């Protein structure tokens, strides 16, 4: 294959998720007509995707660093509940509460980061424990919903800017910043390096344990923001705020081509992954597919994504390996 042909093939491989999202969009638009293919529907797909999208970003950064985080959704739920209780008890202003949400999410993430990065414990076991702890602690703190929340606090998840949900802007800004941070900042480079080869990274003098610690802090802060957006979406803080979203966070990242082996993947393709899921969810709902069947089909989608990723990796290798 000549150079330009190879470049085009590489571009298609790297951006496959966007092509797939486009293909599903066309299929549903043709099948469902104006019911699917209208601006309101697209707007709503992006809005719903932006919340779980924050969790996808949180998961993606953990995966790129060669780890993973089972507790992202539970972090979002617990962070929202803790912030809500503090707002009610101390009458905290909305803007301060927003920063508090990010801080609490980061602190919960730091718990994971300390034991995984600094103490070398297995990320699966640590985040499985914190998944359970965060999940049940939310119920321990409060089982009833918190409804009376400041308007400013609700704005990120429910307000609109120029007719477009603020959550979409927040998610897109977070995704772009994360993309630039990973690609351009030295610390972002270390995250890829730690994910790609932790031993080599240590050998050149980078403190890999520290890098992993901060990855989980960042992942936690992003989860906290997800909790904030879900609060606005639900109009209240409930003890089941982001239940079951952990699997979607994983699915979005994997469909978006983030490598489970670490060191590879981009935040923008993870966004593509979650938009693809959003399009399929919306399409299936409008086709009146039963929720249980939708759940099954999402499982099929993740499985197909794994196969596609495997094919994509080997095809890319074949293209780039010197003959």
């Amino acid at each position, binding site marked *: 294959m000549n150079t330009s042909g190879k470049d085009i093939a590489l571009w298609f491989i790297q951006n496959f998720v966007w092509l797939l999202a486009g293909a599903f969009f066309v299929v549903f638009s043709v099948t469902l007509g104006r019911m699917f293919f209208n601006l309101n529907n697209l707007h709503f797909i992006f809005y719903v995707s932006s919340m779980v999208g924050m969790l996808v970003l949180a998961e993606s950064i953990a995966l790129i660093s060669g780890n993973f985080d089972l507790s992202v959704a539970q972090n979002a739920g617990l962070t929202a509940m803790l912030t809500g209780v503090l707002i009610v008890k101390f009458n905290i202003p909305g803007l301060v509460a927003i920063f508090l949400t990010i801080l609490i999410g980061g602190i919960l993430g730091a718990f994971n980061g300390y034991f995984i990065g600094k103490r070398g414990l297995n990320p699966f076991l640590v985040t499985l424990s914190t998944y359970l702890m965060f999940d049940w602690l939310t119920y321990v703190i409060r089982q009833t919903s918190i409804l009376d929340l400041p308007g400013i606090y609700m704005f990120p998840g429910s307000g609109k800017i120029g007719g477009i949900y603020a959550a979409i802007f927040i998610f897109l800004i977070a995704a772009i910043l994360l993309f630039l941070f990973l690609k351009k*900042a030295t610390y972002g480079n270390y995250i890829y390096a730690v994910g*790609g080869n932790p031993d*080599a990274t240590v050998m050149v003098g980078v403190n890999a344990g520290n890098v992993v610690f901060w990855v989980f802090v960042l992942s936690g802060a992003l989860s906290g923001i997800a909790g904030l957006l879900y609060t606005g979406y639900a109009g209240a803080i409930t003890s089941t705020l982001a239940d079951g979203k952990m699997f979607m966070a994983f699915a979005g990242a994997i469909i978006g081509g983030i490598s489970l082996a670490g060191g590879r993947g981009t935040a923008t393709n993870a966004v593509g992954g979650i938009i693809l899921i959003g399009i399929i969810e919306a399409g299936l709902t409008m086709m009146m597919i039963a929720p249980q069947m939708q759940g099954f089909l999402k499982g099929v989608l993740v499985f197909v994504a794994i196969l596609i990723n495997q094919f994509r990796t080997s095809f890319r*290798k074949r293209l780039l390996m010197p003959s």
Partner: protein
Amino acid sequence: MQEDLKAPEERGKEVSEGAGSEELVKMEGIHKWFGEVHALKGVDFSINRGTTVGLIGDNGAGKSTLIKILAGLIERDRGRIYYQGEEVEIESVRESQQLGIETVFQEQAIVDPLSVARNIFLGREKVHSFGFGKIMNDRKMLEETEELMEDLNLNIASPDQEAEFCSGGERQGVAIARAMFFDADVLILDEPMRALSVSGKEKVEEYIKKARDQGTGIIYITHDLHRVYPVADRFVFLSRGEKEMDIRKEDCSQDELSKLYRRGEE
């Protein structure tokens, strides 16, 4: 151990490199324990500018432990380290690098998903500094990598190529290039020929000779005497945590050295 093994030099004794050759590193009475295991038992070691020392021994001899101490990856339990005559503490890889010691740890020192340029500058990236942080200067890293590749005759398609798609010899070349770029005074090479093709081995030999000619002191760790003999000026044998021999090349032919090595390991 038989007595004649001490010839031609007394066992474990330091060998002089001759007048005019500046001593870069001197390690004295280095001890290291891993729990109950006494991995290094008072080892002395030195390296001079513009020389290559073959550090030889079987698995478990203590070679890797000794160089990991020098590279700042682990700390010694007892003993002293001198760098250009001054006693130093080396507690991290950064401190070792700041002194001028660079280590090439076999193939695992390369990060596959990163480009060749980013591998070379990993941990010491060229950056644009802003008040709030540092942004990598990819263009500068690519340009300098290109120059370095030319200098070392490293024929990689592009400095932007992912390291995963480099051959074994090229990967080793990248690791050595990284060490040379930062003007290492002491270059530690851990089994640099492992898993290389014949042409890859020849290329690495070339890099070693070039670095030595530029005045670098090279520590070449291996258990393959046959490979190290052509490039080294001196040979230090370790066995079970102790220095067994320290011999200059001019005092010993390759055959004699092989015999001494085999008998030392019996």
